[in-house]
């Protein structure tokens, strides 16, 4: 489904991703772990198509289609979703308005009809209930004054509504207490399905206790330096990243 091959990418003339290859199959949950500064967030931005993140070599494709010439919103319409490490606040725009704008923008790009307002409201309410998001949050400006946990929950709500093909979770566990972490993980697990892939980026093994990965990859200095099964995460938890950082240097 997602295929990254020999990817080189730079930001402000500094090469951060240096020949990274990775593939995520439909139904797979792949975890990327790595020390600070290894290029984890950069990878998520490059895949999502953020302006200023320049791909100098290699390829990224989703379902066999190259993403490189697509704008971020076109990639989103193809089914790519990024749950942000630090979700942005949009003052004055209610969560409901934002959700509707996003859903309809994607439907329009795919040539689908807009969702009717009653259907939309019903869909949002059902999803919000599952995540324990209170209705009055939906009437407040998106993420403004929300706690870290509430913001992350809002990201999962958006993911539920947009039903992506491939979801990237960028340090979704950061800043969450254990209860919030469980609710968020349950939301993600509910979305696991044979035709959807996940790329879970995290610094700590903790999140992977809740979202069980099929494969684990270690990212260091812009490359995957080791791949393995779930046991690799436990090894990292015990020994730290020291071995891999040294390898790469």
């Amino acid at each position: 489904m997602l295929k990254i091959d020999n990817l080189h990418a730079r930001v402000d003339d500094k090469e951060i991703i240096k020949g990274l290859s990775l593939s995520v199959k439909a139904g797979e949950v792949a975890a990327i772990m790595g020390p600070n500064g290894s290029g984890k967030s950069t990878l998520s931005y490059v895949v999502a198509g953020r302006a200023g993140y320049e791909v100098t070599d290699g390829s990224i494709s989703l379902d066999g289609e190259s993403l490189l010439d697509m704008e971020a919103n076109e990639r989103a319409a193809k089914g790519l979703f990024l749950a942000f490490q630090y979700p942005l606040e949009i003052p004055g725009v209610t969560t409901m308005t934002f959700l509707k704008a996003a859903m309809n923008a994607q439907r329009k790009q795919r040539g689908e009809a807009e969702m009717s307002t009653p259907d939309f409201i019903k869909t949002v309410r059902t999803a919000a209930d599952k995540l324990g998001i209170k209705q009055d949050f939906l009437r407040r400006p998106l993420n403004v004054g929300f706690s870290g946990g509430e913001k992350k929950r809002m990201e999962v709500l958006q993911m539920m509504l947009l039903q992506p093909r491939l979801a990237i979770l960028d340090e979704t566990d950061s800043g969450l207490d254990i209860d919030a972490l469980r609710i968020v993980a349950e939301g993600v697990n509910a979305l696991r399905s044979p035709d959807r892939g996940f790329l879970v980026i995290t610094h700590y093994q903790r999140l992977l206790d809740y979202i069980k990965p099929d494969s684990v990859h270690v990212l260091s200095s812009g490359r995957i330096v080791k791949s393995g099964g779930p046991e690799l995460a436990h090894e990292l938890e015990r020994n730290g990243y020291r071995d891999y950082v040294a390898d790469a240097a």
Partner: protein
Amino acid sequence: MPAVQETVDRVKSVDVDAYKYGFVTDIESEKAPKGLNEDIVRYISDRKSEPAWMTQWRLDAYQRWLTMTEPKWARVDYPPIDFQDLYYYSAPKSMSGPQSLDEVDPEILKTYDKLGIPLREREALLGIPSSRVAVDAVFDSVSVATTFKAELAKSGVIFCPISEALQSHPDLVRQYLGTVVPVTDNFYATLNSAVFSDGSFVYIPPGVRCPMELSTYFRINERNTGQFERTLIIADKGSYVSYLEGCTAPMRDENQLHAAVVELIALDDAEIKYSTVQNWYPGDSDGKGGIYNFVTKRGDCRGARSKISWTQVETGSAITWKYPSCILRGDDSRGEFYSIAISNGKQQVDSGTKMLHLGKNTSSRIISKGISAGRSNNTYRGQVFAHRKAQNARNFTNCDSLLIGQQCGAHTIPYIESRNASAVFEHEATTSKISEDQLFYCMQRGLSGEEATALIVNGFVRDVLQQLPMEFAVEAQKLIAVSLEGSVG
């Protein structure tokens, strides 16, 4: 909420030079000779068959104007205006003053149709009853039609062109005209006093709540013609009125002058809500053409517990120089100013308000949202003043500026002066940019760059949009999206 989607659709559907009201109506007009002198002033007064005192009032203003110089303190830059190279009066030839709708030139009716302004009462009545609006349509220098006059008259409301009011209610006009903006007030107000051609007159009798929204729609059509309208609104004791003005003009290469004066008077317990959606032609993206909008608007809360509220959405004009103000004379009176000023291309905006606290326990509130894009400059200039007798004066001011792109500017210049120790004035100001992070976030969710900008800007101006009457809020939201067309990327 659906309006956001409309905004987004609108953004996508318009071309780069997006001004959609730029067409010219082909119609014969009768113009005064070019230039300005006493004869022209008399000519205008003559055309309106004005009483002698009015002619003299104009002539005095003209004499005064000759001694004045243009104000230079605003943060705007433009070549000197040749006041002798303008026409000061232009009227469609088929018209000789207000008349019944059946006699209005079909070309003019078509123009207003194209602008989406309902002038035929029968059609307007087919709409939802609650959204009925009475319209006074001013075309160049004259009022061409006023709707719902008869119905308004039933409740004693007078709504007519000011030229007609000078015939039908001369005493009312004489009692109030120039009492808020004196003839000598400033260069452009004085010029307007000498040559104003038409505009709306509103009088709401004591205790009457005006049964519908009133609005005036200004259209400049003729080339090289200045528009100098004059609006006078009087809300007598305990009355209420909500009034809206809209403005458009054809796209022309040369600059055109618009110098209006608006005076509002609220007596004891009266309330006036005045909303403006200003969409004069802003010039092209290189700054060629466009309207110079030099306007004096002032409200006088003359009575105790009276209230005046200004709401403006400013998107058009090459240059805007405009400070709708409130004189809080009556005890316990209240003034409000809500503003959205958007500049794009090479537009220059210097706008704000004055809240002059004279009475006891007076309060005022200022919410200003400036949005600059392209190579434009947007200045908020506001004055809050408490007289030494203004015991317990209160003001809250909030000025937010939003920058889009790298080449625009936002400036905030507040003047705050209190001569009474019990006054409490609060001022908050922020300047922000639409961040790359916000744009990327919205785009990651599927919105295009322009859709994302429109959404963020609509959020930024939300507190002000909420002050507008419902149907105009939707219009204003669309207008904002169109004004920002081409500002991304």
